[in-house]
């Protein structure tokens, strides 16, 4: 228990010197269930060889499989040092000391011997005594256990949790009045003591579970003052935030996005947005959903959007084209391979439905189901992810209305679909009715696409969706 307290102390340097002295003296007076302590005159930065302790079952050698620390790292007692393996058993070796790792005696996959040095640890001079034997048997801090401590010749009863709270807040237990049984110091006693001192929140220690709260009585009057119209002045206190920046390399899906979007920058984008009344389509889908279900296919709105886009591309094939690197030639692609942006756990992927121009709405729906299940399992193949000529992104399933999508090279156009909202609109008779409205935001490559073309394509696409029956006329 004594050692445990030293550990939690080590990160708050201004407390350390004060408390360790006290511990040293009290440690000598300790006679308890643990092994004997050995006092020794310790010089600054003593290097101790931490030997590999007995594994059990008569095992004498193990293989070092993983180091959790490297030379120069600081460790606390009970921190994991390495993982070794012996005959189907994986053993976690933990540190016996607080200190800094100075030498690793083995490389990975080398054989380590029980009883021989594993690592060299430089122990901080002020820590004083180090136990000779393995302290494996020391039970970690328990809230139920009670310990005694002799300070200035008088016993102060307090649980380890309370002791830690006191230590973290630089409070001498001897100065606190205990209100528990046998004058035991309770957590409340420490908090009361603190409240009397200052209203400041003290910086929490990194491992603390208990942070003394700002006494509630101070907060309430401040709120009452608000009502008088005064801007409340917050109690000045040091704001402590112990978060750290984290830098990691850009890999995988993000790397792919960086490449694609950097290339997309070269394309001069223009946007065109509109709203679509999907009232009739919503009704149609409701009717067709159970039919698709019977055939084992889940029918969303996307198959309709995709098919309507393909019908539009038949009239405006330049939107399904590709401009070469030197901007000398435009290739009009024969196949409508319409990409569907998919959000997976790892990131954005865009598989495409091949040859939509010869697919029925049902076939598109079925193919989408296949792509979606492969996508969520992370098993999409090369063929599904290449050859796209035009893309739709249904960001509306997550939310949003208008967007500004980025064209995916080597394509020349992309559409982003917002969410479907129920909004009031006027009908032909001037009456207000409930309409199912969805917004679409197109982006196109202004080098070969002009606004008028985009607008006309959009109008055609819109007309197919607002009046689904009209799709029948043009279906091939």
């Amino acid at each position: 228990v004594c050692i445990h307290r030293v550990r939690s102390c080590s990160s708050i340097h201004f407390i350390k010197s004060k408390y360790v002295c006290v511990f040293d003296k009290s440690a000598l007076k300790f006679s308890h269930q643990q092994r004997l302590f050995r006092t020794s005159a310790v010089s600054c930065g003593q290097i101790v060889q931490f030997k590999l302790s007995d594994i059990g079952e008569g095992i004498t050698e193990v293989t070092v499989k993983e180091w959790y620390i490297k030379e120069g790292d600081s460790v606390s007692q009970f921190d994991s040092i390495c993982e070794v393996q012996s005959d189907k058993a994986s053993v976690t070796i933990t540190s016996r000391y607080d200190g800094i790792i100075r030498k690793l005696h083995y490389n990975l996959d080398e054989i380590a011997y029980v009883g021989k040095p594993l690592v060299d640890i430089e122990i901080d001079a002020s820590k004083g005594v180090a136990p000779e034997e393995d302290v494996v048997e020391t039970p970690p801090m328990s809230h139920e256990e009670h310990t005694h401590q002799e300070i200035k010749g008088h016993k102060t009863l307090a649980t380890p949790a309370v002791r830690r709270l006191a230590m973290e807040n630089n409070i001498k237990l001897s100065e606190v009045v205990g209100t528990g049984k046998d004058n035991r110091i309770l957590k409340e006693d420490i908090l009361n003591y603190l409240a009397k001192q200052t209203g400041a929140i003290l910086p929490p220690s990194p491992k603390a579970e208990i942070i003394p709260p700002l006494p509630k009585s101070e907060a309430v009057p401040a709120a009452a003052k608000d009502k008088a119209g005064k801007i409340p002045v917050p109690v000045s206190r040091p704001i402590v935030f112990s978060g750290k920046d984290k830098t990691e390399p850009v890999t995988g899906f993000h790397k792919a996005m960086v490449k694609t979007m950097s290339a997309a920058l070269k394309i001069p984008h223009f946007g065109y947005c509109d709203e679509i009344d999907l009232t009739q389509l919503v009704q149609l889908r409701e009717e067709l959903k159970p039919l698709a279900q019977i055939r084992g296919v889940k029918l969303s709105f996307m198959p309709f959007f995709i098919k309507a886009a393909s019908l539009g591309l038949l009239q405006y094939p330049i939107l399904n084209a590709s401009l070469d690197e030197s901007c000398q030639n435009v290739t009009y692609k024969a196949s409508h391979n319409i990409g569907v942006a998919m959000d997976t756990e790892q990131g954005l992927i865009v598989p495409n439905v091949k040859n939509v121009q010869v697919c029925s709405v049902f076939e598109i729906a079925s193919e989408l189901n296949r792509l979606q299940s492969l996508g969520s399992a992370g098993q999409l193949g090369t063929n599904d992810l290449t050859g796209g000529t035009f893309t739709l992104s249904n960001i509306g399933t997550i939310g949003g209305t208008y967007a500004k999508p980025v064209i995916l090279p080597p394509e020349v156009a992309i559409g982003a679909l917002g969410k479907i909202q129920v909004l009031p609109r006027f009908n032909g008779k001037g009456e207000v009715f409930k309409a199912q409205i969805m917004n679409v935001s197109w982006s196109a490559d202004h080098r070969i696409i002009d606004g008028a073309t985009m607008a006309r394509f959009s109008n055609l696409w819109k007309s197919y969706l607002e009046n689904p029956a009209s799709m029948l006329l043009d279906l091939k």
Partner: protein
Amino acid sequence: MVLRSSLKTCLQLACILRTPKAGFRSTTSGGLIFQSVSNDVYQNLAVEDWIHDHVNLENRQVLFLWRNSPAVVIGRHQNPWQECNLRLLRQKNIKLARRRSGGGTVYHDLGNINLTFFTNRKKYERMENLKLVVKALKALRPQLDVHVTDRYDILLDRQYKISGTAAKLGRTAAYHHCTLLCNTDKCVLSSVLKSPYKGLKSNATPSVPASVKNLLDEDPGLTCEMILNAIAEEYATHHQVDHHITLINPADETVLPGINNKTEELQTWEWVYGKTPKFSISTCFNMVYRDSILDIKVDMDVKHGRIEACNIDLPEQWLPPALCSELVKSLTGSKFCPNETTTLTTTMLRLCPQDDELHSRWNLLCENMITLM
């Protein structure tokens, strides 16, 4: 007769357990028997971690019984590419898990029983545990020829392995777990545990293949339930406690606080694949393109599951050299993972000239690269 308690009792028990290292106030000290209600390998492995970290094993030992839906479980320091057919696993939707104990690779399904014996570190004794299992089996069927080898396997009829063992030792606690083949699908077992990946060089712990047999093959009258109960009863007798099995729900955060974090960690790519010891791949394959056969040589170093270095030898000018070096550059630092590689290589296609010939060559090369993963 073995009693099974409801989850309510489990809650009461766990409340006592939750207080770290609290003294166990009830009269039953000695042995506790838990059984998982879940068949999810990650959840069950998380329970092992939880018991290891939170239960006071000073004066008490615990037996944990669990079964999993189809999964391959590799040892802490093993290489999944070396141990199993990952492609087949993905196809058949069989999970891959890495446990924290050492040892070799095993295939679990509902026909396999897992037993974990928890003790404090000083009382870690695998032989004793396995002898208990053999005793239980013999009590159930005295004519069964089962015995424990000095490799800690249990053999049936002196030649078929029906149980493999592994262990984990921590600072104060230890556990020894073993499998027991009752009615596992042996066809799936042998097909998934055969690695198709060639040219792998690694210091990871290799598995030792063995012929296996199910207990039910020997005696069709047995069931997994009967075997489980027999072992629980033998354990209870040995520790002089009631035949009382407490059911544990590994998803219940109130009974096992922090369990969901453990379950999640076991499923992360960083744990399952990223903990693979450094290895290298050096392989050649033939690609058939139009009417010619091409020789491709690939060398890769993989560390923490990521490609540290990569070299691809192609016939000259078959692909633009700039593109090849872009490929190598992209792969370096990426996960050794088919999904990630597919994403990267297909993205790169967007940025090349739109040449069908180029595209089909590129796709062919990339698809072959992906089969290595």
